């Protein structure tokens, strides 16, 4: 279960947040001041996915808590939730190590969306760390070489530069070779765009990638369209066996 730490000395707000987080299926833990939060995160090393941090706390304020966490190498995502909404406060929040800043009073739905955003980013970061193991820097098939490090595709003596988005998409397709990948996944997990973005944008990308990968882009053999779902990269092995 996803565990979230609420650092808040105002009982009412802490209870209200806990009720809502639990209703959404999170496990919520409340710390009443900065020291208690530091104790939980640094001494007891309790794992939290996100920390919701108030600024005006008794004793150590939220800025200090965030800075101490970062100094100690604890990089849990922090969302600062505070009544102090002046630009200099927001700046100070980010300087001290917060990942997001939301002034009180806040809208519940927006707070929840931001918490989800922080978790999503965290999961991506974790996956990015795994990438070097699961995706090789280069990938060759049928006289073509995909070079993710140099961000280019070399084919029959020609080379095509890839943009960052093309490169990310190709990497993702290669990693999931043989499996259909939905347009929504491509938008959210590969590019970090909202799912309601026009999915036809992807089709244009696929058309471009086919020019680099296919002998005859009009009748693709490698980058296939899966009707009603999305796309599929047919792996080298699959090609050989067919």
């Amino acid at each position, binding site marked *: 279960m996803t565990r979230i730490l609420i650092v808040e*000395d*105002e009982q*009412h*707000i802490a*209870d*209200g*947040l806990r*009720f*809502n987080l639990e*209703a959404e299926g999170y496990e919520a833990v409340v710390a009443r001041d900065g020291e208690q939060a530091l104790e939980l995160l640094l001494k007891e090393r309790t794992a939290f996915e996100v920390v919701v941090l108030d600024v*005006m706390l*008794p*004793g150590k304020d939220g800025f200090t808590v965030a800075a101490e966490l970062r100094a100690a190498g604890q990089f849990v995502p922090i969302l600062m939730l505070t*009544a*102090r909404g002046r630009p200099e406060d927001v700046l100070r929040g980010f300087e001290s190590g917060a990942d997001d800043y939301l*002034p*009180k*009073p*806040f*809208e*519940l*739905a927006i707070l929840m969306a931001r918490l989800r955003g922080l978790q999503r980013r965290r999961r991506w970061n974790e996956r990015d760390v795994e990438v070097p193991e699961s995706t090789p820097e280069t990938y060759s098939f049928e006289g073509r070489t995909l070079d993710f490090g140099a961000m280019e595709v070399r084919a029959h003596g020609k080379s095509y530069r890839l943009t960052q988005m093309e490169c990310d998409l190709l990497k993702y397709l290669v990693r999931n070779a043989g499996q259909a990948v939905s347009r929504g996944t491509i938008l959210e997990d590969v590019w970090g765009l909202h799912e309601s973005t026009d999915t036809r944008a992807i089709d244009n990308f696929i058309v471009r990638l086919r020019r680099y990968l296919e002998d005859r882009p009009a009748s693709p053999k490698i980058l296939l369209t899966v009707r009603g779902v999305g796309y599929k990269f047919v792996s080298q092995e699959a090609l050989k066996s067919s």
Partner: protein
Amino acid sequence: MTRRQKAIAFFVALCVLLVAATVSLNIGWVIANAGRITPIIFGVVLFALIIAGLIVYTVFLVLEIKRNEEHDSFINAVTHELKTPIASIRLYLETLQSREVSDARRREFYDIMLADADRLHHTVDQVLKAGVVRERQKAGVRGPVDVAALTDECVGLAILRHHLNSGAIELDAPRDRALTVNGDAEELRTVVTNLLDNAVKYSGSSVHVTVSVAAPAPDTVWVRVQDRGIGIPRKQLKRIFNRFYRVQARGLRNIKGTGLGLYIVRSIARAHGGRVFAQSEGEGRGATFTLELPRLITQ
């Protein structure tokens, strides 16, 4: 060191330097005019004036910087005191609107929202009253007010509002004679309520407050509020009545406020021709606040 502390250090250092320069100039003047009385006296007086001016200037500058700092912390405190209950009420309203909530929980949420609305009202009230008492030096509508009855009423309300046991605040008032003052009942109620609120607020979890109404002299009435709370450092006993001033000591980090309550108390006491003072044996040993008002003698 904060930016303000740096500014203060800079101006004090500048003042010391300038005073030193002036003093050495003065000595030079005295030596140069050795034997001539009139220029020496004239010079020394002028130099003394310059030095005094420098010091006065620096003192005022430093005071102003400090006042600015208090004002800033006031703005932060009021922002917090206004926005926190609004955020809380909003949070619970949105929760009620968007989730399935059991009946018991719903009632609990209503109570929380009511408490937050009260808190908001209290803060707004304090800020407005502070503005009013600042503008007006004399009390408003005056009439004879029975201080004992008024205090009794305030004690009852404080017990209700802070959810205390009826024994937590003891009232000791004479029943045989009326202790009447000429004043504005509404304002005097504010004074006693503010004193009681502070006593409860700074008592922590175990509240033992004694309130006594007495006539220490035939022409004066005292309302004395005594708590066994965290006390006040001796040096701050006078300053706590200043606008925006809040006691600085360990152990009271949790207590929130605007720094206006005692300022309002003092302003109203003065407008009634009375005064208010604080006594404390120091940190951790409770505090006693005494409101002294001129008694209205009726034939």
